[in-house]
Structures are given as structure tokens and as C-alpha cells.
């Protein structure tokens, strides 16, 4: 930096010298760093630290360290992705305690991992600042004038003779340069003219765009960590809530006391679970559902939950949430994550078989919602499903019907199952424990039942997400600029000669030199007779 300033102060030749520095390939960066190192011994500690932080070597070492740590993180099961039970099965308790203490069970949230990422971010910032001025100079102060020797030292160079005076030659060269590299700028000095044109100079900034984009992504991640959270909410059909329960990331993997902690957060609105529906890939013939079926993603096409948002007692909106179809409201997003049977059955169908006094059989089906009472006309009974649900172990729907006759007798509490189960139970029932039977002449079975459902929604609040996507877009833009665009520069020095004008051409490209060489050769050939054209150097190394 300092040396640049001294150059700027001494006018005239400094400009040219700087241009030469710019036009020549950058000095070997390791040599540059060596020089810096040597200088740093004299400088104070802060300066040395900043220099260390801006070396690319530090960045590479950090990348390697991050790779190695991440590798450990994929091999060792991590707490957020593995249940404590599985962890306990995988490791002996002593090892588990040790791994946990070392932070190896939650590497990616450990303080030292975050510190490494921060250090990488700082390294990117310092390294970019250190190098940015160099790149910016290409844009701010392009080297429009080069000495003849420097033009001839370019990666691609050629000399041609034009049998015309300088002014006329200038128009010819200008025309050709414009066609291949864009409109040239002319600098005149000591009777000689240098025409300079360049393309895609902004690709010089690509690397900074890429590194800036990584910082933007980091920033988005930090915003999410600081102001966002992940939580869940469980609701039965018909229930509403204003609270969500935060994911417990501190849960211990070792002790039995590792019970999840419930930390609640208040939402600025009420969430009501109106109703649920499960749609199967192959529609079910009967509604007698099995818990396994409704939870099996291979069988279920999707789970649909109708949810509504209420604020101050006013309904704001209604949404249907399904997998891949979240609900979004005021920065809160709700995702379908678990689906299960709730407490009761919401729709019941009873088959009633009746035999009248004369022995004539009749049959009818009663479809009932929830706990609504209904009248069995044949037997003059009022039936109320006082309880209904799914027996947990047997995965069996049941209802308890309270049957009240016309007489003043106390109602009969009758457990009702489907027909096959009832028969089985009656066979198994013994004298000592008789099964409750319905009144004489009537049989009641459950033929259809739609359970109430419960849903578990993942709640995510992440104000940093947009920033992350912006960073990703910038990253792609930067990568495209970096890999598919190159800064191409061309100088043409017009020197008056006895027979007309000598044109010394020189040029280089920041990347993809082989393509540039072809273009350069085309230009030279199209311009006319050439005295000496050097083949492109054998060095295909990309820089």
C-alpha cells in the first residue's frame, strides 16, 4: 500500500510504472507473503495479527480443519439427528459421557465450531480488503498506456505493418479492435499512440462477490440464530392454542434425567385446528383405520389439516396444511410433521340388528357425529356414545353407548366393538367374567369409525432466511462471473515507420487464455500482413 502512494506522488513516470505492474502477472503471492512476514517482525503485534488474518494460507487451513471436523460430525451420530435411546444403544455409557463432554455429539452447534466459522468469516473479510484495492484499480484506473517493451511482453503479442500514415492506420486498427474487444481508448505520447480496449472487466470483482455472498449467508444464519427459533405445537381436532414449545437442544443424552424441557413461547395470534383428513394412495374400503396406516408415508398420500388464524377473536384466515404445503403467517411457518389419532372418534356408524316379538329380523345403520345421542326406533332406546376412541394396544376402535329405555331403569353402559371382535370376545368370556350384553332381541356393532386426529406441527420462525437466499443468488452470480467470464485486455501501439505504421499488439486475459489466444490470432490475421507473430506461449496454466 505504502509503495503505491509514493508512486502516486511522483507524477508522470509513476503512472506508467503502475500500469506496468498492473499489466504484468501478479508477483508470486507466496513471495508476497514472505515479504510481509519479514516486515511484520518490525511492526507491532496488531499489525502482525491483521496480516496473519488476511493470508489465504489461514483460509486454506481453516477449510481443511472444517472439513476434518465435519467429517467427524458425519461419522459420529449427532444429538439433533439421533434419539437419546439410539445413542445409548450405540455407545457404552462411559464413552457416551466422554463424547458428550468433548462436544462431539453436537459438533455443529459447539462454541468452538462456531468460533472457527467466525474466524473464517474474519479471514474472508481481511483477505478481501487486502486484495480488493488491486482489483478495483483495474476498473478505476485501467492501464491505458504501456511502453512498447511491456506490450511485447504480453502473453499474446504480434507486430504488423500497415502501409498507411498513422492517422489512417488508427482508424483501421480501431475498427478491428472494436469488432473483437470493444471500443478502444486512445492515449498519445511522443508521437506514438496506444489504443486500449478491454472486455468483462467486472469479472475481476467476481471473487469478492463470492466471498461477500458467503458473508451474507453467514449473516443470514446468524440472524436466524439470534431472532428465530424452532418449535412445535401439538393440537387435537377442535383445539386452539397461542403457545408453541421450543425444541430442547440441551437435553442430556446420558442421564435418565434427560427429560425434554418444555419452554413455551407466546404467538401474537391464536391457531385453531378445525379439522383433519388423511388421503391414501389406495383409498381404504373401510374407515376402520389403523394407526400404522395413517402414519406410514408409503401408504398415505398426504395429511391435510385445516387450520385457522384468529386475532382478537376475529378470524383472519383459513389454511390447509399438508406436507410440502406449510402455513405462513406473520413470519411464523407451520409444517406438517406428525399425524396421529386423537382422543375420540368423530364419526361413528352403528349397525343395529333387531328381532321383534314375532321373530322378524330387521337391520339398520345409524351414523352419528361425536357424542350426539340418537334414538334406536326399533327398540325405543335412546343411545348416547359417552366415550369412544381407539384401544391403544389393540389398535381397535370402540364406543361406550349409554342405552336409556322408556322405563325409569338406570341406563346400561354397553361397550360396542365391530362384529368380529365382539364374537371373539364373547367366545373368550367365561362364566366368572361375563360380557355385558345389549338388551334381549337387539345386537349393536360398530361398522365404521372416523377417529379424531391430532397433528404435530413444526413451527419455524427465521427472519434470516431471505438474507440467506440473497446470499445464494449473489454466490451463483459470482461463480458465473468467476468461471465463465474473463477480463480481456488488448493494447495496440501505433509507431510511425518509414513505410507507413508499425502496429505492436499485445494482450492478455485473466482466465481461459487458450480461447483468448484464438481470438487474438483471428484479430491479427484479419488486420492484415504481419511481420512477426509469435505463437501463444506454451503456458496454459489458468490464472
Amino acid at each position, binding site marked *: 500500500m505504502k509503495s503505491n502512494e509514493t508512486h502516486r506522488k511522483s507524477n508522470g513516470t509513476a503512472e506508467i510504472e503502475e500500469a506496468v505492474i498492473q499489466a504484468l502477472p501478479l508477483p508470486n503471492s507466496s513471495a508476497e507473503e514472505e515479504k510481509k512476514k519479514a516486515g511484520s517482525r518490525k511492526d507491532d503485534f496488531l499489525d502482525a495479527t491483521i496480516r496473519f488474518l488476511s493470508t*489465504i494460507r489461514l483460509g486454506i487451513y481453516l477449510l481443511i480443519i472444517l*472439513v476434518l471436523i465435519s467429517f467427524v460430525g458425519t461419522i459420529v451420530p449427532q444429538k439433533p*439427528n439421533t434419539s437419546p435411546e439410539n445413542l445409548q444403544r450405540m455407545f457404552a455409557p462411559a464413552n457416551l459421557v466422554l463424547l458428550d463432554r468433548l462436544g462431539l455429539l453436537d459438533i455443529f452447534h459447539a462454541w468452538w465450531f462456531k468460533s472457527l466459522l467466525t474466524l473464517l468469516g474474519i479471514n474472508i473479510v481481511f483477505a478481501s480488503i487486502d486484495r480488493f484495492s488491486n482489483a478495483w484499480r483495474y476498473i478505476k484506473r485501467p492501464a491505458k498506456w504501456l511502453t512498447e517493451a511491456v506490450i511485447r511482453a504480453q502473453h499474446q503479442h504480434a507486430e504488423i505493418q500497415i502501409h498507411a500514415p498513422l492517422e489512417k492506420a488508427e482508424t483501421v486498427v480501431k475498427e478491428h479492435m472494436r469488432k473483437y474487444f470493444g471500443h478502444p481508448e486512445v492515449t498519445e505520447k511522443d508521437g506514438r499512440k496506444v489504443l486500449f480496449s478491454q472486455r468483462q472487466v467486472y469479472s475481476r470483482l467476481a471473487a469478492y462477490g463470492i466471498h461477500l455472498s458467503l458473508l451474507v449467508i453467514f449473516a443470514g444464519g446468524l440472524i436466524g440464530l439470534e431472532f428465530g427459533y424452532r418449535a412445535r405445537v401439538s393440537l387435537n381436532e377442535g383445539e386452539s392454542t397461542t403457545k408453541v414449545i421450543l425444541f430442547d437442544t440441551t437435553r442430556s443424552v446420558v442421564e435418565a434425567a434427560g427429560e425434554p424441557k418444555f419452554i413455551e413461547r407466546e404467538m401474537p395470534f391464536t391457531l385453531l385446528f378445525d379439522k383433519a383428513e388423511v388421503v391414501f394412495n389406495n383409498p381404504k374400503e373401510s374407515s376402520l383405520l389403523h394407526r400404522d396406516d395413517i402414519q406410514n408415508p408409503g401408504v398415505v398420500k398426504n395429511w391435510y389439516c385445516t387450520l385457522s388464524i384468529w386475532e382478537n377473536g376475529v378470524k383472519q384466515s383459513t389454511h390447509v396444511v399438508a406436507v*410440502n404445503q406449510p402455513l405462513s403467517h406473520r413470519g411464523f411457518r407451520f*409444517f406438517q410433521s406428525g399425524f396421529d389419532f386423537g382422543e375420540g372418534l368423530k364419526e361413528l356408524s352403528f349397525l343395529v340388528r333387531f328381532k321383534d316379538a314375532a321373530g322378524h329380523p330387521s337391520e339398520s345403520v345409524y351414523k352419528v357425529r361425536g357424542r350426539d345421542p340418537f334414538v334406536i326406533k326399533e327398540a325405543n332406546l335412546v343411545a348416547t356414545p359417552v366415550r369412544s376412541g381407539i384401544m391403544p394396544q389393540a389398535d381397535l376402535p370402540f364406543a361406550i353407548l349409554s342405552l336409556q329405555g322408556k322405563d325409569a331403569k338406570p341406563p346400561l353402559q354397553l361397550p360396542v366393538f365391530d362384529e368380529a371382535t365382539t364374537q371373539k370376545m364373547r367366545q373368550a368370556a367365561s362364566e366368572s367374567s361375563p360380557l355385558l350384553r345389549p338388551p334381549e332381541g337387539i345386537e349393536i356393532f360398530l361398522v365404521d369409525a372416523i377417529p379424531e386426529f391430532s397433528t404435530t406441527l413444526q413451527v419455524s420462525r427465521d427472519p434470516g432466511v431471505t438474507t440467506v437466499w440473497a446470499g445464494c443468488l449473489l454466490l451463483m452470480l459470482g461463480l458465473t462471473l468467476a468461471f465463465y467470464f474473463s477480463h480481456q485486455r488488448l493494447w495496440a501501439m501505433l509507431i510511425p515507420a518509414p513505410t507507413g505504421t508499425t502496429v505492436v499488439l499485445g494482450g492478455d486475459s485473466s482466465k481461459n487464455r487458450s480461447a483468448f489466444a484464438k481470438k487474438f490470432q483471428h484479430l491479427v490475421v484479419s488486420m492484415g500482413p504481419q511481420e512477426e507473430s509469435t505463437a501463444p506461449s506454451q503456458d496454459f*496454466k489458468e490464472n
Partner: protein
Amino acid sequence: MSRVQTEPMSEKEATAQKKILWPILFSFLGMLLLGMFVIPSILKSGAGLMSPGALLSLAIIFYVGGSALLISYLLRRVERLVQVAKGLVLVAFVFHTGAIAAHWMVARHPPISNIFEMLISFAWALIALDYIFQRIYKLKILSSFSVPIATLAVLLSTILPTDPERVLPPALQSVWLYIHVTFAIFSYVACAIAFVASILYLIKDRVKLETFGMITQALTVSTLLGIDWLGNADTAHRHFNILLRGEFFLNFLYKGRDIAIPEMEKTFLAAALPWVGTAMRISLLVATLGLILYLVKASSKILIRVTQLGFLAQLAAVAAILIATLNTSTQEMIDRIPGQILSQYDATALAKAATVSIKSNPFTLAGLLVALVTTLLFLILNSRHEAIVASLPEPRLLDEVNYKVVTIAFPLLTLMIATGAFWANRTWGSYWNWDPKEVGALITWLVYAAYLHMRIVRGWAGRRAAYFAIIGFVLVLFTFIGISYLLPGLHAYA
């Protein structure tokens, strides 16, 4: 004058024909044998010739023939070999395309939603990109590596469960799946091509044969140890059974969900196969011996003998696995499970739900095959080193291909990660979950980022860049296949 000119020509032609006669005969014989094995089984299955499975089997026949010819092109540099191979690969590619189209039609989604589908799409894209690169760089030798890799991928896909009628779980029913996976496939293919170019560069740059030998041995040792550690647990949850006890445990393959065994326990419910453990133990010991001999720089004669011995041992191990899985009935396997473990399960239900098949441990077989093919390629390289080096294109062209392809692979990797994150955010509400596959992709990305920094800032080209690209591709394989089987997370289904 004309006589003088034609005579040596015809002589040259005659030697050329003699040189290519055996490879062509050999590969056609191989195809015929494969056909005799494959076609009756297609007819027997009754699925018809236009079914995805049948078309893929036909493609395999021609790919194997084409690969054999392209590998023999390394030994006998006669252009006619490549022409014949090109024809075979073209036929295979047509069948392959048909298989993908048929699979797509049956499954009613693009064939990129699980490892099987991804492998066949990967192989397809590799062949297609190989063709494009042939057009640009005229590097015939590239095909000698990329076509066998594609063949290996298609072969491996056949040992994976394939169910085109499987309905996608709701979480996968998103257009982002296809966007995400398409980027993944193309970036992986680009990484594979950079890998091949790097290997060729190292050969051309006259990296010592001993180094290649050492890498081959190290790969074999680490693959076998990897299998032994992660894929060979016995019922007592003990690992390293090949090394310590000379036993290889095969898991069962479960049909449907008739049996309620937790996933965790399925991986430990296994039985030892006869002979396989011994064969693998011998391969491991020979490869370790080879590695040590390479490290202490033993004489090259001994080294080659040990490598050849190792190759035979690996061949025996693969044969032993195939024979043992075909010859062992489910009941025999169940009988080999220790009583106190078996008593925890319903043995009759287990016998009904479980089958013995190599498909239950695809990762193991894939690892063995990769080690086997690598050893074979090394032995071929060893026997014709000078001829192969002489026929390779200039190193700087190979180096340029390496860099060019990485500049394609890296943005694609970035897009793959970004679209995956976008999709995860839409489906699960967070764009990054540190799930093993995500971390694997991140590691790969970081390694290629380091490669690009070293290349652009430090001017690392040539050998060092080649080693970098090789490491990158190994990581790609680890992320693509390894993690799905060994460390399932959110990506468990793919």
C-alpha cells in the same frame, strides 16, 4: 512404387487385425455368456422386453462388451477397437435410454428419486457428457475410464431395490426434488470426469507405478476395513468381524412390512456366511501386506506378485459372496443366529419376511467391486505402462480438462446444495439441518473450494490439482452412496 507402398500397409493391417481379434472375440464371448444368462431370465419373468428391467439388462450386456473393448484399447492401441466399442456403447445407450423412459412412465416421475434411479441416471449422464467431451477434446482414452465407471454404476444399480411403482412419500412429492437431484447428478458426473482426467494426468506425468500400486492397496485396505467397521456388525453389535474373527455377516432383506423389527435392530440381525469371511480376511491381509511392502519399498517383482495375489483373493471374496447368497436358504441363515438373540423374535415370521440376498448389503458389494476393478486397472497399467503413457494426450490438455470440468462441477455443486436447502426450508422449515448427507455435500464443496483457491491464488496445477480432484471425487462417492447406507438421516430414502 505402389506395390512397395501397399505391402507394408497390409502387413500393418494384418498385425492390427491380429491384435484386435482376441479382445473382440473375448468381449463378444462375454456378451454372449451374459446374454445366455440374462435373456432367459427376462423371458421367464414375463415382464416383456419393453419393461424397464429387461431394457436395463440388455443395456448391461452391451455396456460390458463396450467396456471390455475400451479397457483393452489401453493395451492394444488400434482405432478399430474404439470404433467397435463405440457401436456397442451406442446400442447400450439406446437400451439404457429406453430403460429410463420406461421406468419414468411406470413410476410416473423422473427417475431420480432414490439411489437406484439416481445411479442409472448418473450412468446415463456420464455416457452423454463423455460423448460431448469426446467432441470437444477428442480424448478417446477418457472413454476407457468413463464407460467402465458408467457400466459399474448400472451394474451396481441392479443389486439395489427397484420398484418403479413405489409411490413417493409425501415429503418427496415436490418439483424441487427433481431440480435438486438433477443438479446433483450433473455435478457428480462432472466430478467423475475430472477424476478420470486427473488419473490420466498422473499416468502421463509418470507418477511412479509404485505410487499407483500403493494407492490401490490403500484403497483396498480402507474399503475392506470400512466394510468391516460399518457394514459387518454381528448380533452382539461387535464390529471388525473379518479382521478379528474371519467372519462375514450378511443382513436379511425384508419383504414388505410384515415383521415388526425396529430399523436399528435390522442392521444387527445378521448371520455369518460360510467361506466369505475367510476369503475377505485373506484379501485384507494380502492388501495390508502389499501396502506395507510398498511403504518399505520392496522390489517391484514382489510387489506385483502380491498385488496379483490380492486380486485373486478379492475375486474369490466376490465369488464367495455371490455363491453363498445363492446357496443359502433363509432357514439356514436363521439357524445360524445365536439362540438367545433369535428367541427375542418370532422365528416363523422372520422366515416369512426375510430373504437372503446380496441386495441387503449393496454397499459391501459395491465396495468390493470398486476395489476389484481398481486392482485390475492397476495390473493392466503395470503390464503396459510405456504404451499407455505414450498414447495419452499431452499433460497440459489433461490438466486443462481437469480444471475446466471442476469449474463446471463447482457451480453445479453449489446449486445442488442451494436448491436442496431451499426445498428443505419449504418442507421442514429449516434450510440447513446438519444432516449427514448435507454435511457430506458441504465437505465436498469445501474441498473443491480449497482446490480452486490453491489453483487460482497459488497456481497449483498438474499433480497437486490432480490429487485434489481425486480426493474430491472420493468424497462425492462417499456422500452419494456411502452416507445413504451407513448414516441415514433426512436423506435416508434416497
